[in-house]
């Protein structure tokens, strides 16, 4: 049994052996926002914050997260109010199929919270671990650049 605080809500779960945090989130807790597109740490679709650090949840063993606070994409908005990254992604056309979107929302909101005024190249570097196959990335960068200038 491990204890996780996910998006502020405490949970007690019993992951199986070497199960990843991603599997625990999805298959045991029904939190389907985090996506599984590679399970190898290559695509960033499963990105979450673990005690404030950005991680690929597919690479973290659930048991190693015992006691941690986890923020998933479901915890990024403030109730009905979208996070500015979410708002900007929708408005700028940064979302097509959306499979990469949860990971990008988590990673980009983390970037803006931790890095003052990132440049375009800083944004690209920070998100280089998030693969998007649909957009060619341009619309996502256009969504984030104005926010970076504000931050």
């Amino acid at each position, binding site marked *: 049994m491990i204890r996780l605080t996910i998006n502020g809500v405490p949970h007690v779960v019993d992951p199986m052996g070497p199960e990843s945090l991603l599997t625990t989130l999805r298959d045991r807790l029904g939190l389907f*926002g985090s996506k599984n597109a590679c399970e190898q740490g290559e695509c960033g679709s499963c990105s979450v914050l673990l005690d404030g650090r950005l991680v690929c949840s597919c690479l973290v063993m659930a048991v190693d997260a015992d006691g941690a606070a986890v923020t998933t994409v479901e915890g990024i908005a403030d109730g009905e109010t979208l996070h500015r990254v979410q708002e900007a992604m*929708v*408005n700028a056309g940064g*979302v097509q199929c959306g499979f990469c979107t*949860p990971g990008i929302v988590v990673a980009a909101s983390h970037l803006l919270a931790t890095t003052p005024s990132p440049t375009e190249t800083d944004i*690209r570097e920070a998100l280089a671990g998030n*693969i998007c196959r*649909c957009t*060619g990335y*341009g619309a996502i960068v256009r969504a984030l650049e104005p926010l970076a200038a504000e931050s």
Partner: protein
Amino acid sequence: MTITKTPTVVAGGVGTSPIRPDGIPKVRGEFAYSSDLEVDGMLWGSTVRSPHARARIVSIDVAPALAIRGVAAALTIADVGGRGLFGLIEPDQPVLADGEVRFWGEPVAVVAADDRETARIAATAVVVHYEPLDPLTDPERAEELGETFRVLDITRGDPDARGEVVVEGYYEVGMQDQAQLGTESGLAIPDGSGGVDLHVSTQWLHVDHEQVVASLGLPPEQLRLHLAGIGGAFGAREDISLQIHLCLLALRTGRPVKMVYDRAESFVGHVHRHPARMWFRHEADRDGILRRVEARILLDGGAFASTSPAVLANAAYFAVGPYASESVTVHAAAARTNNPPCGAMRGFGAVQSCFGYEAQMDRLAAALGIDPVELRLRNALDREDRIATTGQVIVGSLPTRRVIEALRALPLPDEAPGDDPRRLPGGTGLTTSRAAVMRGVGFAVGIKNLAFSEAFDDFTEVRAELTADGIRIHTAAAEVGQGLVTVIQQIARTATGISNVEVVWDHTGEIGSAGSTSASRQTQMTGGATLRACEAVAAVALARADAESLDDEGAWRDDQLVMTLADLVAAGPIEHLERFRHPPTTPPDEHGNGDVHAGYAVAAHRAIVDVDPELGLVHVVRVDTAQDVGRVLNPQAVIGQIEGGIMQGVGLAIMEEIVIDRGVMKNASFTDYLLPTFLDAPDMTAVLIEEPDHWGPFGAKGVGEPPTISSTAAVVAAIRNATGRDLNRAPVRPEDIVGL
């Protein structure tokens, strides 16, 4: 009723970029993809796959799998009733291997168990004895042996026509993966009376339905396919993957069954872009006018037909590109080998030949001493010209010249490579000195047909309905991420004046086929059907109210609201079912000529690259484009298709290739199959050329594929320009640049 106002132009109609209705659920992580579905008591399925490219199956023993606690079923071909075969064009692929495996990764058995882990373990417990056979993996050998899915010979004009200047070249394109981010997944739920509901991410619900019922021997009404949330497609979801297996397991166990491929399985679970070997000979007169083009094109179709016959047709019909020539000979073949099956991927055959003919145009320009862009302009096709291969007269728009000129007119940035290593070849791993980085520019133009060709009965059904709240559109068309759902709403708004439009995905039992979400066809096809259905609904509503216009409140005459939408509907249902077809096409005649296509789109790309000549690494700095789009219905969505499509073209140019060694895939993971990242993405500027086409709604053309067709050729041309090397193969590998 005394409300008075002047109805205004509807918000969110055609020509605007309203936010997508699924955008907010997607950014919140609340949008349900097919991999996110679950129901109580469901089982997990898993697939046993062949470890050999070719082998005889001596025996299959499922008993060890069934002995594991929690395993509900382990099935082989012996458990399949019905035809047992599927395939988009020819049903030639067994649902589960039948006596022989023909490619590495071919499904041999399927299991279902209480949880995912147990299902995986059970799959490894199935004992299959194979007797390995020599795989046929060389497509040239396969063609010699007559192992082909289709051979297409095209001749047009005088075969003795000659030009003064002749260039010949041999070119290759590697096998590309769609790498759609959501892997194959679905959930089959038995209905308790012998039928099943399948929720799946697919590009074409009805063709899946046809294949599942035929292969399993089900009465058609016993199967209903429902569209589930789709994480990208790009051709990967046009064929059957797990649809039949899921239904088979659900019907056998009487329990819901879910399957989700992992990435490695996804690589073998869908077809890929055909690798190509191509030879071209171009002859022109001194002015650069093409006098004769000869081409031989060989595609490796892999073990099963999939869409090889149609991909081959595109490669052959577009062997000359968007250029005129009065004398053409093309021999094209799609070989049957024991390599992984190939089929649909964005660009569908047009990508491969474009890589060849555009390299040829550059060679020809060099041989003639003519500017390569100028050479293209001199040969460019336009409305009323004939396609060089088929002889078909172009009746819709084809502004090749305008596209080329618009791209040429874009300023060419002349700044040198920057200082930030993150935007240089090799990124922070750059080892060369910045001064040694070489810059090059390349230009390429591509053409493709829109919608289905060669007399295929291509149609789409849409039902539009007036409700008390607005318009409801029923469709089975797959929204794969491209934004069709938004475009349907926009068209419905503009057609009716009513802004509140809801799109409902009907299952296969409720509405007819929408056709495939492929061939750049849905904006024109489902968009076209939506326009007609909505116009019909609006006409009935206006007649009923004797009114002049509609909006979300109701029907208006002389600035007076004469009936609300609720009143209109209360007086009887107002709806219209439209079955929309594009202009008919013909099969090719014995010379490969004929009116085989319903329309065309053309695009041009200009790439700027920086190359590290020591490590052979490339950074694509810019890819600018001009694209023939007919009419822009949603600027943001068009740009999204262009940027995403160019990125896939860049990937094929410099990094994306499935490596096959004697039939075995060597890089079936995102660690080993490289995909462009945020840092790899070039800057892009797009010019949209609007010259309305003859049958799309408001003159619109599909826009999804042209960005992927000539972008690869442009990037490789730029690398040639930077390095002076011939580079006849995409993707360009570091060793090709270094010259090892």
